[in-house]
């Protein structure tokens, strides 16, 4: 019996490794090629950093990068804030239609991007007349990033011992000060986690941004897309590496903050 288990384990291990290879190989390739001397960025010809240097001096890229950063920055702050208070409201309050609300909050993340993108485009141009560009993009990003924050923070809340809140009230703190001194600090890890997860989501977003950005508001992903018809290029490789690195850093930051948070909040 034990032997069977070990065989099964080995087989699963092989399958798992293969799956990981499948998921990572293309990106590893890109990362490698971003350091390659090859003009087309499609094969290896010696190590070089020149593409990264070129990236920094490329005006279009700088422009798009700045725009992406600003949008992501604003989105993170707003979406995290909305996510926090929404999670609080959803957890504490009970009312008819709560299920419906919870499901509706899921919609922006689950719908295909073309649907939300096109719907928002039509909405912005035909109904409310929000200028296409920063306003439209930021609003759109907030719309599909807030739900993420809601669920991350809500998840953390469900593992709380809310007796702390009662204790604080009992000891003389008003609800506001309770949140300030007790609940808030406890939620901080989750809030940070959602911020660090929303940032890559907003930064990397293409489809929805493409729909609502209009002319002249190029974010980095849109720039990448416009370069795509040239096939593989070193520029895209470097940008791609940048994207992946941002995501990895974000994930690492989340992981470490969770670890620290767990230490402080275990009782």
């Amino acid at each position, binding site marked *: 019996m034990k032997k069977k288990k070990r065989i099964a384990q080995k087989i699963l291990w092989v399958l798992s490794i293969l799956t990981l290879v499948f998921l990572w190989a293309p990106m590893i390739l890109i990362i490698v090629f971003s350091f390659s001397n090859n003009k087309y960025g499609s094969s290896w010809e010696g190590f070089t950093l020149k593409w990264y240097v070129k990236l920094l001096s490329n005006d279009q890229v700088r422009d798009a990068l700045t725009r992406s950063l600003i949008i992501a920055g604003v989105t993170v702050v707003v979406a995290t804030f909305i996510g926090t208070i929404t999670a609080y409201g959803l957890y504490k309050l009970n009312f008819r239609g709560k299920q419906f609300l919870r499901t509706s909050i899921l919609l922006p993340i689950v719908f295909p991007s073309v649907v939300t993108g096109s719907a928002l485009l039509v909405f912005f141009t035909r109904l409310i007349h929000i200028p296409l560009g920063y306003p439209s993009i930021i609003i759109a990003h907030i719309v599909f990033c807030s739900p993420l924050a809601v669920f991350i923070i809500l998840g953390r809340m469900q593992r709380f011992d809310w007796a702390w809140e009662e204790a604080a*009230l*009992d*000891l*003389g703190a008003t609800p506001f000060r309770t949140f300030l*001194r007790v609940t808030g*600090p406890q939620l901080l890890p989750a809030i940070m986690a959602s911020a660090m997860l929303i940032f890559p989501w907003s930064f990397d977003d293409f489809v929805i941004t493409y729909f609502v950005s209009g002319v002249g508001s190029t974010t980095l992903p849109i720039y990448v897309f416009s370069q795509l018809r040239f096939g593989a290029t070193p520029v895209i490789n470097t940008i791609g590496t940048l994207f992946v690195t941002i995501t990895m850093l974000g994930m690492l930051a989340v992981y470490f903050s969770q670890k620290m948070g767990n230490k402080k*909040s275990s*009782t």
Partner: protein
Amino acid sequence: MSGSDTQNAGQQQAVCLEIRDVVKQFPGVTAVDHISLEIEEGEIFSFLGPSGCGKSTLLRVVAGLENQDQGDVLIAGKVVNDLPPYKRDCSTVFQSHALFPHMTVADNIGFGLVERKIPKAEIKKRVQAKVDLVNMGGMEDRFPHQLSGGQMQRVALARSLVLEPTVLLLDEPLAALDRKLRKEMQVELKRIQREVGTTFLNVTHDQKEALSLSDRIAVMKDGVLLQIGTPNEIYETPRTRFVASFMGASNIFVGSVVDSADGNITFKTEDGLKVTLPIPADGAVDQISGFSVHPELVELQPGGTDALPTGPAADVLLAGVIKEIFYLGDFSEISVQLNDADIKLTVYISRSCGEAEAKMTQGQAVVARFPAESMNILVG
């Protein structure tokens, strides 16, 4: 184990907490059903009852963490119904102690003082005083996750006491501790209370804890107050069948009064046993639902298979056979099967008993006797 100095019937103690006809309902259940009582300054008062009897709910109503549907709560003479918990002059020690994990022991204890905007130097002084009071010196900079259960409870206590509340509310504070620790903490609690003199309102389901800790006890069941009294009163003379059995009485006879004559009443148990006893002082004969006898008050006389005298007598005599003898060291527990009814009488025989009793064996015929006054009338 019995009452303490503060329990003086004649002396007028200030009432620091009054609960007036409070009702609290939840969907489908009435947790607190018209309860009224007064708690005196400086006493340790316990709500005792099984889970779900409403004691915790009542405590939370006093604290302001729940709002009652009806009735008033008065702390130090002031009605506090509309005051939120942070404005009431009472402080709660929670069962899960609820210490703030991200704050040190010192910060936890000082939490309420910060809310009262007391200057930092003063806070430090008071916190230190309470740290010493609960014997947590040297641990001020520790975090809750570095403390043991007993230590956390002490910090919680200090945190509430430092605010010098009129009433300190304790919600089963020792329930999460293991037995040995619980006993130690009981002693600690009593010592601390005597030192600071604050009124303690304690909620517990543990009879022994209530008996050893409290100056007065209120026994509750299903949201209703069954009996209030000193530990002595509750234990020696429980008023209802529930209180009797909850306090661990083992000889409870259930039945009703069937006859009354000559200042005596005849009580017949469900199993047909007939006992005669004098009419109780308050004369409420129809509410009598049973009686109890403490095992240590029953005497056993060997022999005697003759019929019992049926007339009124100073003692109740019941013939039976010894079923089981449990030797427990300082006393023996003897189970006697009565002849006239399917009842097993529990009798405690102490070590210092007579020779005849010491030699009793299983299967021996005996007569159990106890004075009528030692019978405790039960109602309800």
